C-alpha cells in the first residue's frame, strides 16, 4: 500500500512549479489555564495578493505538521490543535495550475486521495481540532476546516465558497460529505450547488456563521485572540457547542431534488459536476456525523472518483479555460496598444439623450467621475435624459449603493446642453448613441469634430455599422473608435472596441484606458459587420429561425439547444432584444453576407403584426412561456421536421462555420476572444468555456472547418 507521503511525492513530481504552502506548528498557552495548544499556520510566504493554495508538496507539509501534533496529542503534550492562515487569507484550495497539468486518471485520483488522507488525520487526532477562518477560504481551504471538530470565522472574511462546481469539479476533499452532515443538506446544496452556479457567489463571514458552518463569529480586529479564548472555553467545558439535529428522512431527498432543479435550470444536464456533487450529497444521507465514526472511507472514495473523472473530462478544462479568460485575458486585452499612449479623459460628451445615451452617461459619471454632458436636438429630450440619470442616481442612493455626498457629486457631473460647441468644447472623449443610420452618424461626427479639441476621441456605440465608413468624411479619422456596449450596460461586462481602418494607436489606447476605468472587459475587434457577439448570435438565431421556417416545431427547436446552457432560450432572447431589432440586424448581416445570413419571413410577419415576441405568459401556467396562438397562426412552416439532435447539429455547424470565418477574417486575435465575448457579452456559459471548447469537444469544429479552434491543453486534457 502506498503511504500518503509516497503518494504526495509522486504527485509533486508532476508539478515542479508549485507555490508551496508551509504548515508551521507553533505552541502557545491558552487563556483560562486551558493548557498547551498547537496552532498550525498555513502560509506560502508571500503577501495576501498571492493566496495560499494546496498542491501536492503543500499537502505533504501539512502531513508532516500533523505527524508532529498527532504525536504530541497522543503523548498528552497538547490539549488541542488549531489551524489558521496568514493575514487576510485562510487558504483558497487546490492549486488549479497543478490540476491542469494532470494527464492521467490515476494521477488525478492520487490528488483526491492525497487530500483526503491528510485532512482526515485532523479528525482522527486524540484532541479536539479547531479551524479559524481568518480570511478568504475556498475549496480545499474550506474543506480542511470541515475536518476539524470546531470552526470560528472572522466578520472581516470577504470571500468563502466551495467553487468547485462552478469550475467543473466537486468539492472532493470532504466537502460533499461533511458539509451536509454539518449544516444539513439543504444549506449544503445552497453552498455547493446554488452559489457555485450563481456566478460563484461568495459568502461573507457573518453568513458562514449564520449557515452553521462556523460555531462562533468574531470581529476582525482581534479575531484570532477571541477565537483562542473561545477555544479555551470550549476545552474547559465553559462553552458548549450545539449542533442541529439533522432530518435524515424525506427532507434530505428534497434538498437533493432541489439541487437537481437548480442545476437543470442552469446547465440543463450539459455539465456533469453539479450532478456528481449531488450524487455524493445524496449518498452522505445515512452517514451520521463525522464524529460518530461513520464509514467515511466509502463516501470519500466517491469524492475521489468523481474528482478524478471530472479532472480528466472536458468540462473542467472548459471551466478553467473560462476562468483564465475572465481573470487574465480580460485584464490584458490581446492586441491593445501600449497603455502609455493613452491620453487623459477629464470630460466626456454624449451625443443623444435617449435611453442608451442616458445609460452611458450614468456609467461614465459613476466610473470616471468626470463631467459628462449630454446633447440632443431639443431641450425637452435633453432634460428627459438628464432627469433619467438623476433618477437612477437617486435609486442608487435609496439602495445605499452611494451616500448622499456621492449622489450630489454624481448628479452635479451629469448635465445637458443644446449647443454642441458649448457642451463639447473641452471634452476629451465624445461618444455618440444616436439612431443607427450611417448618414445620421456621419453628420453627427462632422458636427462634433468641428467643436471638440484636437485630441478628443470620437467614439460610436454602433452595433452594426462600419466604423471606418463613419469616420471617412472627417478631417481626423484617426481619432474614431468603435465602443460597443451590451444591454444592460450596467450589468454586462463586455465592451467591443473597434479599430477602424485609420484609428491610431493613441486613440485606441485611450479607448482601452477608458474601458478599464469603466470596469469593462474590453476586446479588440476588427471593423467587420456586427463585430463579434451580434454576428454569432444572429447566425445562431437565424439558423433556429430557419429550422422553424422549414417545419420543425418551436418547442423542438428551442429544446434542441438547451445543452448549450444559454442564459435563456433563443426566442426568449429575441423577445428581450425586441423582434424588430432582431429583424433589423439580420437584414444588415444579410446585406453583408447574403449566402449565410437569412431574413426569416416568419420573423418579418411577427414584426409586421406588431408582436413583441413569440410567447405569452399567464399566471395559470406559472408564467412559463407558451407559444402565442396569434403568432402560431402567423407561422408559415415547411414540412421538413427535424429531431432535436438534427436541429442542434444544424445550429452548431452554422456557429462553427461563422467562427471559423471570423477567425480567418481576423475579426479578433484568437478563438479565446470569441469565447471571452460570448461569456461576458451574451452570458454564454462559463462551464462550457463559452462555445469553442464545446465545439471542439463535440467534434463540430473539425467536421465544419477541418480543425479544432483551440490548441490541445488550452481547454482540454493536455496531450
Amino acid at each position, binding site marked *: 500500500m502506498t503511504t500518503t507521503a509516497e503518494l504526495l511525492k509522486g504527485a509533486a513530481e508532476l508539478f515542479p512549479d508549485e507555490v508551496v504552502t508551509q504548515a508551521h*506548528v*507553533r*505552541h502557545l498557552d491558552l487563556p483560562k489555564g486551558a493548557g498547551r495548544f498547537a496552532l498550525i*499556520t498555513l502560509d506560502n510566504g508571500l503577501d495576501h495578493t498571492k493566496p495560499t493554495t494546496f498542491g501536492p508538496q503543500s499537502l505533504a507539509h501539512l502531513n508532516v505538521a500533523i505527524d508532529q501534533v498527532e504525536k504530541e496529542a497522543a503523548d498528552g503534550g497538547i490539549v488541542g490543535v488549531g489551524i489558521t492562515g496568514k493575514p487576510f487569507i485562510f487558504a483558497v484550495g487546490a492549486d488549479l495550475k497543478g490540476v491542469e497539468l494532470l494527464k492521467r486518471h490515476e494521477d488525478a485520483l492520487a490528488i483526491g486521495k492525497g487530500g483526503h488522507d491528510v485532512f482526515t488525520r485532523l479528525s482522527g487526532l486524540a484532541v479536539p481540532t479547531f479551524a479559524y477562518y481568518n480570511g478568504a477560504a475556498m475549496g480545499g481551504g474550506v474543506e480542511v476546516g470541515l475536518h476539524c471538530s470546531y470552526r470560528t470565522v472572522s466578520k472581516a472574511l470577504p470571500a468563502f465558497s466551495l467553487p468547485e462546481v462552478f469550475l467543473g469539479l466537486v468539492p472532493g476533499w470532504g466537502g460533499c460529505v461533511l458539509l451536509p452532515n454539518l449544516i444539513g443538506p439543504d444549506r449544503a446544496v445552497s453552498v455547493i450547488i446554488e452559489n457555485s452556479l450563481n456566478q460563484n457567489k461568495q459568502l461573507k463571514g457573518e453568513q458562514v456563521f449564520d449557515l452553521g458552518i462556523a460555531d462562533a463569529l468574531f470581529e476582525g*480586529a482581534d479575531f484570532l*485572540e477571541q477565537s483562542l479564548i473561545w477555544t479555551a472555553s470550549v476545552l474547559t467545558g465553559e462553552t458548549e457547542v450545539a449542533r442541529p439535529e439533522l432530518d435524515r428522512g424525506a427532507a434530505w431527498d428534497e434538498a437533493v431534488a432541489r439541487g437537481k432543479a437548480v442545476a437543470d435550470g442552469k446547465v440543463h444536464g450539459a455539465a456533469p459536476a453539479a450532478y456528481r456533487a449531488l450524487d455524493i450529497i445524496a449518498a452522505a444521507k445515512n452517514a451520521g456525523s463525522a464524529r460518530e465514526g461513520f464509514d467515511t472511507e466509502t463516501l470519500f472514495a466517491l469524492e475521489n472518483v468523481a474528482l478524478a473523472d471530472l479532472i480528466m473530462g472536458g468540462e473542467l478544462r472548459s471551466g478553467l479555460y473560462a476562468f483564465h479568460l475572465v481573470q487574465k485575458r480580460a485584464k490584458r486585452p490581446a492586441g491593445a496598444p501600449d497603455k502609455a499612449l493613452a491620453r487623459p479623459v477629464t470630460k466626456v460628451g454624449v451625443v443623444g439623450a435617449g435611453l442608451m445615451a442616458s445609460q452611458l452617461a450614468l456609467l461614465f459619471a459613476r466610473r470616471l467621475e468626470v463631467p459628462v454632458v449630454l446633447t440632443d436636438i431639443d431641450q425637452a429630450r435633453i432634460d428627459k435624459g438628464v432627469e433619467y440619470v438623476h433618477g437612477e442616481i437617486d435609486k442608487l442612493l435609496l439602495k445605499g449603493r452611494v451616500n448622499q455626498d456621492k449622489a450630489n457629486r454624481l448628479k452635479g457631473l451629469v448635465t445637458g446642453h443644446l449647443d454642441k460647441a458649448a457642451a463639447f468644447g473641452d471634452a476629451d472623449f465624445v461618444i455618440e448613441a444616436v439612431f443607427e443610420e450611417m448618414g445620421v452618424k456621419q453628420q453627427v461626427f462632422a458636427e462634433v469634430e468641428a467643436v471638440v479639441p484636437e485630441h478628443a476621441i470620437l467614439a460610436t456605440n454602433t452595433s452594426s455599422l462600419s466604423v471606418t465608413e463613419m469616420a471617412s468624411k472627417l478631417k481626423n479619422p484617426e481619432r474614431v473608435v468603435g465602443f460597443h456596449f451590451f444591454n444592460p450596460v450596467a450589468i454586462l461586462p463586455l465592451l467591443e472596441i473597434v479599430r477602424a481602418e485609420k484609428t491610431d494607436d493613441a486613440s485606441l489606447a485611450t479607448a482601452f484606458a477608458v474601458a478599464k476605468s469603466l470596469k469593462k472587459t474590453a476586446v479588440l475587434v476588427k471593423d467587420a459587420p456586427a463585430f463579434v457577439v451580434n454576428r454569432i448570435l444572429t447566425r445562431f438565431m437565424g439558423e433556429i429561425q430557419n429550422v422553424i421556417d422549414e417545419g420543425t416545431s418551436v418547442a423542438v427547436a428551442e429544446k434542441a439547444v438547451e445543452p448549450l446552457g444559454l442564459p435563456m432560450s433563443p426566442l426568449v432572447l429575441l423577445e428581450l432584444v425586441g423582434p424588430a431589432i432582431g429583424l433589423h440586424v439580420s437584414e444588415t448581416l444579410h446585406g453583408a453576407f447574403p449566402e449565410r445570413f437569412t431574413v426569416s419571413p416568419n420573423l418579418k410577419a411577427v414584426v409586421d403584426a406588431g408582436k413583441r415576441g413569440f410567447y405569452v405568459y399567464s399566471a395559470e401556467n406559472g408564467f412559463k412561456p407558451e407559444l402565442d396562438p396569434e403568432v402560431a397562426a402567423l407561422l408559415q412552416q415547411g414540412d421538413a421536421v427535424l429531431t432535436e439532435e438534427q436541429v442542434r447539429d444544424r445550429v452548431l455547424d452554422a456557429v462553427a462555420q461563422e467562427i471559423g470565418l471570423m477567425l480567418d477574417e481576423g475579426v479578433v486575435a484568437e478563438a479565446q476572444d470569441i469565447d471571452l465575448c460570448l461569456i461576458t457579452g451574451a452570458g454564454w456559459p462559463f462551464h462550457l468555456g463559452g462555445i469553442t471548447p464545446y465545439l471542439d469537444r463535440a467534434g463540430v469544429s473539425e467536421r465544419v472547418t477541418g480543425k479544432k479552434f483551440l490548441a490541445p491543453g488550452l481547454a482540454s486534457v493536455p496531450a
Partner: protein
Amino acid sequence: MPRTARDVVFVDGVRTPFGKAGPKGIYHETRADDLVVKCIRELLRRNPDLDPAKIDEVALAATTQIGDQGLTLGRTAGILAGLPQSVPGFSIDRMCAGAMTAVTSIAGGVSFGAYDIAVAGGVEHMGRHPMGEGVDPNPRFVSEKLVDQSALFMGMTAENLHDRLPHLTKERADAYAVRSQEKAAKAYANGQIQADLVPVSVRRTNAEAGEIGWGLATADEPMRPGTTLENLAGLKTPFRPHGRVTAGNAAGLNDGATASLIAAEDVARELGLPVKMRLVDYAFAGVEPEVMGIGPVPATEKALAKAGLTIDDIGLFEINEAFAVQVLSLLDHYGIADDDPRVNQYGGAIAFGHPLASSGVRLMTQLARQFEEQPHVRYGITTMCVGFGMGGTVIWENPHWSGATNGHREGNK
C-alpha cells in the same frame, strides 16, 4: 457662571502583556497601533454597559509619534477599534509619563465638565521605534550648556542619581531588583496580573526567533523569576565603566500598550460602571534633566501639598521602576524602607518591562486591584520619573475604603 469641579474616577484599566523589544521579541512583527487597539476593545468587552458612543475622547500617548505610532493615534486607533466615528481622539506625549498624562489631561477635562467618560492610554513599541528615533535636539542645549550631554541617555541619568545619593549603592539597587522579580512572580502565581491582561495574537516569520506562525502572547515576556543577587552582581554596567546601573536593576527596552476608562464619578455610577479609584490630585514637576530619576520627589511633594495630605496618609505606592535607584531615591527622601510592603506589591517595571508611554496606566491598574484587595487603605499614589528631567505623581483614593483611619499602619505593618 461659577461651576463645580466633578469627582473623577478610574473605571477600569487593561494592558497587553509586555514584550522584549527587538527581533526576537514577541511583538517584533506586531504593529504598535494594533497593540493599543486590542486594549481599547478589551475595555469595551469588559464593560458591556458602556455604550461606545458615550465615549467623549480617546487620548493615547506615544513617545515616538511616527509610523504606526503616528497619524494621531488617538483618532486612528479609535476607528480601528470599532468605536463610532463620532468619538474623537488625540495623541499625547510626555515620554515615560505619556499614559499618565493622558489620564490627567482627560481627568482635567472631566472635572471641568468637558467630558463625561473617555479612554486614556498609551503605547510604545521600542522594537519598531528605538529610543531616540528621529530626534533632532537643538544644538543650543549643548552649546549653551542648558543640559548636560548625559541628559539624553536615561541610563546615564541613573548613574548620575547614584552619584548624587551615594548611599544608594549598587547592592541596594540589586537587592531591590531581586525583590521586584520575586514580587512579580508571586503576583502572577496569585493571578493578580493576568486578570488585567488582554491576550494578543502574534505572528512570527523569522525562524531564528523561535517557532514560526501565529502564537498568542498571554504573559509578560521580560520576567526573570528566580533572579538572585549573584546573577545580578556580574552584569555589565553599560552606561559607565564600573558603574552601578545594569540591565538587571533597570527596566528593559519593551513593547506594549495600556488603556483605561476615566469618567466623572456620577456618570460612572449612573451607567453602572465600576469605580475602582477616585482621583484626589496630581502634579508634575521639573528637575535637572541629568538626574531625571529624582523627578517623582518634587512631583509627589507638590501633589501631596495640593491634596492637603502627607506621605503618612499614603497606604500604597505604585512607583515606576525605570531604574531601581530612582525608586530608592523617592523612598529615601521620605524615609521609607527599601522593602516597605506598601511599595510595588506586585513588583514593577524591572520585572514586567517599561514600554515608555504606556506604563502610567499599568501603575494605575495595579493600584486599583490592590485597593480592591485592601479596603482598609484609603490613599495610594502612582508616580514616575520622566525623561528630560520631570516627575509625575497622581494621588488616588480607594472607593472601597471602609475604615475610619487611613489604614496603612494597621494593614501592612
